[in-house]
């Protein structure tokens, strides 16, 4: 039997709070995390104003960083390194109690990591001259910066890679991590996902109003930002060291889709269940990425209804958080691990009137108790790609 990948550490920062606990409590209470945001830093044409899910600036500090290093980091790098240290601690790792650094890997999923850094390099180069661009700034403008900074902060010398696939980026990152653990390429993997608000996303979100997941008058999702880091290990090894296992990763499928506008939601859903050896009827919960986008919500409604009908509880956190881009899928995984542990499904904020053109799925305005059983995380994006992750409690 091949090894099972397990989640042993979770930490995150979302528009609802600087931790998993704070985000979870806010979701249960039905709060939303939207504030008016303006792109005022002169990095991009236009002055975008949008309602967005912005991170509060109250993240607990972690003593792993010197001031000098902090100054050199982009916001994504700073978030991922800070949240990563908290996930590491949540997994029970720390000084003198950590896996072999050469067997510790870092995987990051992001849709647009480093974009703000890149725009800053362009601004400085064009307005001050290329010779005045900071040598620290340039590398922060590339997609792999946050993963690199996390590996430096954690001293992780194993495999490293950044993957990017829109909102499904985190599911691909989890796939890589599970591969590393199952094939012995790593003992422990820091799996991160991050995207932050930037001038392009704010401009694209200018017309979005209140998000209405699966709602009749849904008209697009406001942008949101988040950072999530999980620690993934071989389940047997984790138990042997006495670690708490938040959830096991039973199956993952991430597919491109997109031909003739067709979403890969249904095939990804089916493939993840098949890998997990789980029947759709045994699922206790489906965590949807619906955020009020006309087409992706429709694809998810048909995929979910086709698989589990209208009885299995479904929820989406994105009516409260906005579209968290490349952080979406991993954020769902973290929240679903919590839902399984607490046997509780959070409400779906913001739905409004149900869309009569969509098949019914069992979302709710209030929290619900869950029967035991695995859960499935479904994530889609506007290109048609989709991912599904089956989680189960140990």
């Amino acid at each position, binding site marked *: 039997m091949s090894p099972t990948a397990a989640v042993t550490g979770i930490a995150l920062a979302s528009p609802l709070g600087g931790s998993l606990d704070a985000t979870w409590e806010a979701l249960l209470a039905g709060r939303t995390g939207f504030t008016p945001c303006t792109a005022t830093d*002169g990095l*991009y*044409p*236009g*002055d975008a104003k949008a309602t967005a899910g912005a991170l509060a600036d109250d993240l607990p500090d972690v003593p792993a960083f010197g001031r000098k290093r902090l100054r*050199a980091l982009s916001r994504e790098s700073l978030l991922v390194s800070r949240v990563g240290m908290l996930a590491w601690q949540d997994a029970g790792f720390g000084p003198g109690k950590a896996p072999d650094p*050469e067997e510790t890997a870092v995987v990051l999923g992001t849709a*647009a990591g480093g*974009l703000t850094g*890149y*725009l800053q*390099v*362009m*601004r*400085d180069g*064009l307005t001050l001259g*290329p010779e005045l*661009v*900071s*040598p620290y*700034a*340039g*590398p922060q*403008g*590339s*997609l*792999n*910066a946050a*993963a*690199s*900074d996390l*590996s*430096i902060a954690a*001293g992780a*010398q*194993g*495999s*490293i*890679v*950044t*993957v*990017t*696939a829109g909102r*499904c980026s985190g599911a*691909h990152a989890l*796939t890589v991590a599970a*591969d590393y653990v*199952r*094939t012995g390429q790593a003992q422990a993997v820091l799996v991160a996902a991050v995207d932050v608000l930037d001038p*392009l*996303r704010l*401009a694209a979100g200018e017309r979005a109003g209140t998000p209405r997941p699966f709602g009749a008058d849904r008209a697009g999702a406001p942008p949101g930002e988040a950072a999530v880091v999980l620690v993934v290990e071989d389940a047997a090894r984790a138990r042997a060291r006495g670690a708490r296992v938040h959830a096991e990763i039973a199956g993952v*499928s991430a*597919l*491109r889709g*997109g*031909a003739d506008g067709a979403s*890969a939601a249904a*095939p990804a859903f089916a493939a993840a269940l098949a890998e997990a050896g789980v029947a759709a009827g045994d699922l206790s919960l489906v965590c949807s990425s619906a955020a009020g986008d006309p087409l992706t919500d429709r694809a998810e409604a048909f995929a979910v209804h086709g698989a589990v009908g209208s009885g299995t509880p479904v929820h989406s956190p994105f009516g409260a958080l906005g579209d968290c881009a490349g952080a979406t899928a991993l954020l769902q995984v973290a929240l679903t691990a919590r839902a399984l542990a607490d046997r509780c499904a959070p409400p779906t904020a913001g739905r409004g009137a149900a869309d009569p053109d969509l098949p019914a799925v069992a979302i709710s305005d209030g929290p619900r108790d869950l029967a035991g059983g695995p859960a499935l995380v479904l994530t889609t994006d506007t290109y048609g*790609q989709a991912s599904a992750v089956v989680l189960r409690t140990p």
Partner: protein
Amino acid sequence: MAAMAAQTGPARVVVTGLGVLTPIGTTVAGFWDAAVRGVVGTGPLTRPDAADFPAALAGEVAGFDAPRAGGERSLALARAAAAAAAADAGIHRWTGDPYRAGVCLGTLLGSRAGLEPAVTGFHRAADAHGAPYPGPRAAPDLTDAVARELGFLGPGLAVATACASGNSALAHAADTIRAGRADVMIAGGVDELSSGIMMMFSSLRSLAPDFLRPFDRDRAGLIVSEGAAALVLESYEHARRRGAHVHAELAGWASASDAHHMTAPHPQGSGARRSMLRALKSAGISPDRVDHVSAHGTGTPSNDRVEAQALREVFGPRTPAVTSLKGALGHTQGAASAIEAVACVLALRDGVVPPTANLVELDPECDVDVVRGRAREMPVRVAVNNAFGFGGNTACTVFTRPSTAGSAR
């Protein structure tokens, strides 16, 4: 027992298609002929839209006139390389299960260069803070363009490890096949010229004044280039079943992080050394069986010294035949190690290692067997492809001749 293991063991990954667009050639044959002859593809920028680039020298893909704006050039480079590789593999449009065929492209900047015309106009306008230059709302998706063109709708993503992205994409695509999530993957790398990347290397004082001279005593940095490469990877069984010609086997791959510094390599080449050793271990091949190493060889003082030191640690004082194609190509960023992977496959096929262009006098601190002056004809059975990106992201791949596929190692 052995027969069962052969049937149920991890899938072997083979290369069945190649496609490249580079500053020295835009077909596989043209590229390889120029590489073996040591043709240099870097020089003064000539593109009509190059006026805003903050460097005078670059390696351009000649005769390829897709514009930077909106990401059109990156998308066109990626599509062209992928289409060429697919055609070489005998695949014109995928007709099997669309979800069993995927795309994995390595890139440093994605299609961010497509934002530059709007951003440059904005900052150069007299009133930079009005809204006279509304820009694109997103950089377009490279993977999506390739996936739709070929009908490869399975696992699809881009992979970024800075200058090691091409190798990382090959590694992830191979993991995807080995894990049984796809039968065939288009894997490779793409990056176009951009002001952003030139400003970045300029801020690091890494741009050479004339030529990129790998391992040379007088090397003084790199020249930024553009390009794309794609390889069709598939499981050996899948290739055999459809009767595809196998160019080579992708026998091993690995990555490692320096965990040291964002821009400087680890002083002892820790990540580079471990990446090579782990890739060889994953291939089940001992270092003494390696004939050829396609070096990262960027021509920066620190990379080449540290890489040579790592090569000696892995292979001993008598290293395999080392070459760096970056003397000829310049640094094609996220495409570099994908283009160099194509060269490794061709070196295995033809038994020839191209020379390291622009290398005149070997740096005594880089005391490895660098092929220079002219190509070296020699049996190449095992080739290692090195790629070391900033952020300490390293990735290595190991290619072997197809004749070893199916035989015991």
